[in-house]
């Protein structure tokens, strides 16, 4: 009798373990789900650990019960492949219209819903035809004829047509946020239902980036929603997901598009959740409330990566933090002196910046763009400024300032604890060590940006992000740049005409070797001018759930359609 009671008690204990495992996804611990394989492994361990203590009858009975629970649980939403992947948003998504802003943070989300004529593989630095099946280039390199991929449908069921491409491009060309990538297109027209012709004003190889960036939308869907497009749910994209619920405040949910031309993605639903605070996001990840988290703060990387190991990777970010020195400053004319600017550059210790900004996880650099992501980036063959305080002091003395000099104010946008502010503090300290005096001015972007536009500054800390072709340097150095360019080279004591010519030459050919050579000469002129000093590429810390397989982590445009549950 006692033996029977004990046996029954052990069986009940065994049952308890099985129930907890089986109740994982839909029960009390609903927000802490465990993959099916992990559950079965756990079950196996328990059975093996209790071979004698649990009766055979009990084992088979409870095993049968568990199988029933698992089979029922398989049909509960949130289980296995129906389970939503939860991803953090650092701020509100302003709209479901991808053309609302060129902000990379928002583009990453729209990237899951919309596609362009070209796709981009950040990991291999390659672009490939996506909605375009084949692209022909005319002999004069001014006309691109895109043949659309057959069989592609929008999420609303409508087939992709050339008129949709024309509509999408005409819309983008009117959008000032995208002028920097559409300015070379003079005309886009439908040849027939499956062919579109783009006419450019000059040969422009980096048009592939335009083909990637401009997403194709269903003209019918956009027009039917009118002014409300972007504020309400739509099925205007061809991408693997469409929004099934959206609030600016909390985020959005995406559902897999069953008619997606590549086939239904393995992960059927995505939940983007707005979590502004970094600490809260880290806790949510460790609490299994998030499955994929990027931009893990460097200060927390050691702990979080140890927790998530091996599903943690710190990749080099596609960004650059640089210092710009305004040789045209009217408040501090001393900056017109090349020797003073060179002295400032040699005084900068990029390792200190790396330690201050990213705990040493960043990459010190002499290049404006990281070579891992950006085509035709110069690697060598231009002047660099390795940290050399002795040479800095010598140059200052040669410039007539043996006892040091006041170079004015370092303008920084952001908060007092932001990356930019930390870099500014290091610059100020480095300068002080060689006798260069500089003040810091940290303020909101709204205050700083107008001053940069008007070139009303001495020195500034600035950032570049999300560039994929070296041609984009034109937004910073070309006189034809419409937006903010930080340094004005035109009419300056530099070979600015050659810079503009090299930009055109670099864009005119697809030969990477030739392009790199042109851009190397261009970058050499810029570095010789001692006006822009790239300092570091910040890293992107990425962690993901143990039940998730994301393939190769990339810093910017991850593709959830390539993710799978284990």
């Amino acid at each position, binding site marked *: 009798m006692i033996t029977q009671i004990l046996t029954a008690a052990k069986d009940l204990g065994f049952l308890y373990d099985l129930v907890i495992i089986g109740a994982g996804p839909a029960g009390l611990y609903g927000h802490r789900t465990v993959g099916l394989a992990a559950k079965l492994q756990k079950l196996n361990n328990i059975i093996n650990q209790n071979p004698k203590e649990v009766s055979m009858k009990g084992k088979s009975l409870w095993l049968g019960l568990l199988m029933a629970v698992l089979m029922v649980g398989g049909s509960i939403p949130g289980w296995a492949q129906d389970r939503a992947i939860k991803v953090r948003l650092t701020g*509100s998504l302003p709209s479901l219209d991808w053309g609302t802003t060129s902000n990379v943070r928002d583009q990453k989300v729209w990237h899951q819903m919309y596609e362009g004529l070209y796709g981009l593989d950040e990991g291999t630095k390659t672009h490939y035809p996506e909605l375009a099946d084949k692209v022909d280039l005319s002999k004069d390199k001014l006309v691109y004829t895109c043949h659309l991929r057959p069989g592609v449908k929008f999420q609303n069921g409508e087939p992709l047509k050339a008129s949709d491409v024309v509509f999408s491009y005409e819309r983008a060309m009117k959008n000032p946020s995208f002028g920097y990538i559409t300015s070379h297109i003079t005309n886009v027209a439908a040849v027939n239902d499956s062919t579109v012709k783009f006419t450019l004003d000059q040969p422009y190889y980096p048009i592939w980036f335009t083909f990637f960036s401009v997403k194709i939308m269903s003209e019918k869907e956009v027009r039917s929603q009118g*002014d409300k497009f972007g504020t309400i749910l739509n099925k205007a994209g061809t991408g693997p997901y469409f929004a099934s619920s959206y609030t600016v405040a909390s985020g959005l949910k995406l559902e897999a598009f069953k008619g997606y031309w590549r086939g239904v993605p393995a992960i059927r639903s995505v939940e983007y959740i707005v979590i502004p605070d970094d*600490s809260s996001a880290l806790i*949510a990840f460790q609490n299994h409330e998030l499955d994929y988290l990027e931009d893990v703060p460097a200060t927390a990387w050691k702990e979080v990566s140890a927790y998530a190991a091996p599903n943690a990777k710190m990749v080099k970010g596609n960004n650059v933090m640089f210092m710009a020195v305004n040789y045209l400053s009217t408040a501090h004319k001393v900056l017109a002196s090349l020797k003073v600017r060179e002295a400032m550059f040699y005084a900068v210790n990029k390792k200190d910046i790396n330690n201050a900004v990213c705990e040493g996880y960043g990459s010190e650099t002499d290049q404006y763009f990281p070579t891992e992501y950006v085509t035709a980036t110069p690697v060598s063959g231009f002047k660099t400024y390795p940290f050399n305080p002795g040479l800095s002091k010598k140059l200052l003395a040669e410039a007539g300032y043996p006892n040091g000099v006041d170079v004015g104010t370092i303008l920084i946008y952001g908060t007092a604890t932001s990356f930019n502010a930390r870099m500014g503090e290091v610059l100020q300290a480095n300068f002080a060590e060689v006798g260069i005096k500089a003040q810091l001015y940290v303020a909101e972007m709204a205050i700083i940006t107008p001053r940069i536009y008007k070139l009303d500054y001495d020195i500034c800390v600035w950032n570049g992000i999300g560039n994929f072709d070296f041609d984009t340097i034109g937004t910073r150095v070309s006189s034809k740049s419409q937006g903010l360019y930080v340094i004005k080279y035109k009419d300056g004591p530099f070979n600015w005409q050659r810079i503009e010519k090299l930009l055109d030459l670099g864009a005119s050919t697809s030969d990477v070797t030739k392009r790199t050579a042109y851009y190397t000469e261009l970058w050499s002129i810029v570095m010789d001018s001692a006006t822009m000093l790239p300092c570091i590429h910040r890293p992107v810390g990425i962690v993901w759930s143990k039940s998730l397989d994301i393939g190769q982590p990339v810093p910017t445009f991850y593709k959830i359609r390539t993710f799978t549950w284990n």
Partner: protein
Amino acid sequence: MYRYVIKRILFLIPTVLGVVFILLLTMNFTPGDPARALLGDSAPQADIMALDHKLGYDLPFTQKYVNYIKNMVVHQDFGVSYFTKQSVFDEIWPRYLVTLKLAFLGVFLSAVMGIPLGVYSAVRQYSMWDTIPSLMAFLLAAVPAFVLGMIFLFYFSLKLNWLPSYGIGTWQHYLMPALAISLPPAAMNLRFTKSSMLESVRQDYVRTARAKGASERVVIWKHALMNALLPVVTQIGLSLGALIAGAVVAEKLFSIPGIGSLIVDRISYKDEPVIIAGTILIAICFTIVMLIVDLIYAWIDPRIRAKYANKKG
């Protein structure tokens, strides 16, 4: 009394007009513009100015003020957000309700925790019932809400896995943020109640009540507390304003989509319609709360009630 209430409600009109005036004036003098924030730094200056013009941002201050008041009064229209292009009211109303829920829960918890402990602390002065709550009050008054919030997140969410760490939806989502924002004011309520009660229990009417044979419970809770509550009620009313403002910290930490975090986020975009509408709603709420506090005074203190009655309402 009714006339007094109506008068106070009508006072909302100059309040709203004043809030709109001050906000528009302040934003008129602060640098930046919404078009630059929306279009990014690659957009030409001409396009930025064109968008500012389209949004009506570059209108003169007086014209903006008149337009805003006219739209609000005549069309009941708070405008469209520069940032999301959605109707301002549709955007802020759900978030306003979330913040109100959180703030009122915070006030309720701070009162429920602070007042009884304050009473016990006063009645059992110099004992353990006094020392421990007073010490806790001292510590909690010094600890900011966001620190408490982080501690709660760490223990209740991460370590114990009892409560979710972000969002809204169930009562579990509100528990940690409400506690975080209610504990510092609860500490203040405790100290206010204690000092007020200490004064009250020494009054002659309390001695008289005891002499009449009233039980200690009736003496404390009916006679002493009722007279001690007036400053406490004022403190609670004022703390509601502080909680609505302080809720922005909890909203950011716990990723709660409230109106405080909305206003703070939109400041960098100079999203005037949202900032003004959100602030108006907060001001209205605060005014109504102060009115309710005044009405509670009348309910607690019959002398105030009589004064209103003598004035024929």
